[in-house]
């Protein structure tokens, strides 16, 4: 039974940080409740936020430290930390910190690395798409918009399927269009998602050509000095597969805005150049006296990005000992990448709240508190620095990541490592070189060879990924138990694939099985796979080297393999 210290908090499961309330039911269980004392635009909680209560009281919570070998042995946390301190002092160690942890925890881990005299290298893990889009936005120096700011704009440009992954952000857009039903809503996406159905100007482009279209919109909006990224409307239309008239009309709508609001939702399997997309989005918004709201996967992505950049933290070659604080690296990286990385590691230490694929490979498991329990500071995708209150005590010996780091520092005899953060770092965008992003030019247009399809990831409102915390909850397991591969009816017919069939998808990176969904609305030659499942992520070059974007896959009905 979880005893609540407080009822009101902010959700930490994505960058919108929605207002959340929990209550204790008369029957003795926790349940989500909803705040009506916050502005109308901030009310409501998506299906992930609704899982908070279930997460806090989850039966599979990790509440004690374990040594995992031939026999798994539960040990007191202090003993595990002492043993870990000895290992760290005797070997080269990499500390991989999840960017979704509160800023205080990230700052403590970075301070430990800085004070370790080179023994520990620290890296902050962010989903590649989040990191890249933030890099682009930082380079653009664009203003970040709150939902209230968005509702004051007179035109909206959305890149990606923001309503699918961040449903609460639809509220300011709806409010704006309620005030003026003719408000232009330009949606740029490579799939017909849940956002594009609301668009006045839906721009459904060939996968990976988003930056060309944005460059065309930027040119018409008065953005200059784009160098090799410059792209005329005619060329952008031809390369992205759009009718020239449709793109010209959308460009006119954007150019005609007095205050433009831009929403960016990055997805790694849709484009390879989210930094360029972030940059162009920011430049267009600034040219039209508006700003950008970043719809990021990680709740504290912006805070983590700012802290990591200020500390110069990066991952080079992992050390012999790797301490993973919160990240499920095995689930988020491709299988090949993981095997390569794990092969060189002698000791893997993983701290987590619930079982993950990484924990299965770990030598030492440490119990970790949820952000809802730890409390701390987070930066939203609108740039608001907020404090998340601690709702409840963490179970057993589970503690915040910063506390684990402080105890490790103490055991190593290091002083000055505290769970504290410099707020000014969280409020400042780092300097990023615009030229370096521009000079790369647009990526080549991805094409699938004969007999293959171009696979892109489709946003999923239910799962963020297989090893994610919410995947332990009952609702995703009921609603979306398996990954889905959506394809066009004309593509599926010759392969004998019908809706509901199990299909096998094979790329150069890996293979996975999914349930087929055959529709008329999907572009021919493109297959959309659920982004929330590790088996679908394995199809993509999903790693820390930023080789991302659509991939060629071969598809066949499962059971017909030869």
């Amino acid at each position, binding site marked *: 039974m979880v005893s609540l210290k407080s009822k009101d908090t902010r959700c930490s499961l994505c960058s919108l940080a929605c207002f959340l309330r929990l209550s204790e039911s008369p029957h003795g269980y926790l349940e*989500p409740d909803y705040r009506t004392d916050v502005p109308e635009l901030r*009310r409501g909680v998506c299906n992930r*936020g609704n899982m908070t209560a*279930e997460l806090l009281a989850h039966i599979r919570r990790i509440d004690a430290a374990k040594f995992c070998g031939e026999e798994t042995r539960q040990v007191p946390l202090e003993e595990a930390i002492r043993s870990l301190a000895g290992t760290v002092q005797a070997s080269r160690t990499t500390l991989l910190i999840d960017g979704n942890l509160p800023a205080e925890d990230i700052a403590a881990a970075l301070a430990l690395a800085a004070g370790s005299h080179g023994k520990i290298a620290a890296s902050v893990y962010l989903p590649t798409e989040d990191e890249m889009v933030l890099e682009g936005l930082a380079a653009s120096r664009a203003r970040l918009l709150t939902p209230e700011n968005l509702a004051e704009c007179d035109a909206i440009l959305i890149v990606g399927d923001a*309503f699918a992954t961040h449903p609460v952000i*639809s509220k300011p857009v709806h409010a704006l269009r309620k005030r003026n039903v003719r408000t232009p809503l330009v949606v740029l996406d490579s799939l017909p998602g849940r*956002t594009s159905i*609301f668009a006045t100007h839906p721009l459904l482009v060939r996968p990976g050509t988003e930056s060309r279209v944005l460059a065309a919109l930027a040119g018409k909006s008065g953005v200059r000095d784009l160098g090799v990224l410059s792209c005329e409307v005619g060329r952008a239309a031809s390369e992205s597969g759009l009718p020239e008239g449709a793109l010209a009309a959308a460009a006119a709508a954007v150019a005609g805005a007095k205050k433009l609001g831009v929403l960016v939702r990055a997805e790694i399997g849709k484009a390879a150049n989210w930094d360029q997309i972030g940059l162009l989005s920011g430049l267009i918004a600034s040219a039209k006296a508006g700003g950008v709201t970043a719809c990021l996967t990680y709740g504290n992505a912006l805070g983590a990005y700012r802290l990591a950049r200020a500390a110069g933290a990066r991952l080079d070659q992992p050390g012999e000992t790797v301490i993973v604080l919160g990240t499920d690296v095995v689930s988020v990286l491709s299988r090949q990448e993981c095997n390569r990385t794990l092969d060189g590691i002698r000791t893997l230490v993983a701290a987590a709240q619930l079982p993950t694929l990484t924990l299965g490979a770990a030598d030492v498991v440490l119990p970790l508190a949820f952000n809802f329990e730890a409390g701390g500071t987070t930066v939203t995708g609108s740039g608001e620095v907020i404090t998340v209150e601690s709702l409840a005590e963490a179970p057993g010996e589970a503690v915040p990541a910063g506390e684990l780091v402080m105890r490790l520092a103490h055991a190593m005899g290091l002083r000055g490592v505290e769970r504290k953060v410099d707020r000014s770092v969280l409020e400042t965008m780092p300097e990023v070189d615009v030229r370096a992003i521009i000079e790369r030019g647009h990526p080549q247009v991805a094409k699938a060879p004969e007999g293959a399809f171009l696979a892109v990831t489709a946003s999923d409102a239910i799962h963020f990924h297989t090893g994610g915390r919410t995947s332990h909850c009952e*609702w995703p397991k009921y*609603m979306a138990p398996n990954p889905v591969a959506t394809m066009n009816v004309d593509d599926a017919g010759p392969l004998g694939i019908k809706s509901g069939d199990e299909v096998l998808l094979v790329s150069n990176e890996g293979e996975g099985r999914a349930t087929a969904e055959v529709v008329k609305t999907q572009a021919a030659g493109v297959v959309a796979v659920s982004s929330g499942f590790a088996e679908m992520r394995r199809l993509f070059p999903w790693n820390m080297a930023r080789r991302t974007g659509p991939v060629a896959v071969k598809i066949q009905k499962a059971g017909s393999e030869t």
Partner: protein
Amino acid sequence: MKPETIEKRVILDMDLCVECRSCGSACFYGHKNQPIINYADTEKVKVPIICRQCKKPACVDSCPNDAMYQDELTVSKRSLTKCTACGSCVRGCPFGVLTDEMIKHAVPKCDLCEARVLEGKEPRCVQTCPSGALSFGEVGTVEDTKLLLLSTRTTGHHPLKRR
């Protein structure tokens, strides 16, 4: 003071629904993992199917075990202990709201979150709705909003087309 009847119903504005299925998750968790809200897939849109709480409910009339009943506030509910999951209500409901997927040997059924409504709150599905598509109001008030009313509970300027 306890009202004589609950006149308000859950109303869906299709102009605003982003198909996030948050209503389903809130309802699922609040009703001990029962999938009470279902989603009709029309390919163009996935419409949440939420019980209309009919004044003369066919699910109640068709139940051979008196498991489906209308309480004193006119909310149609299902008694967990009496339901034998025979499926009569599933076939009786003219709107396809009830599912024949048996959960814990019973048919999941919306109870309009009656306990919450009596406390002055709104049903879970309405309060969680991130896009503002669901509201809790009296059906007669829909006419004032200039929205089309589609089969008594679904509204919108053009309910199946949103641009």
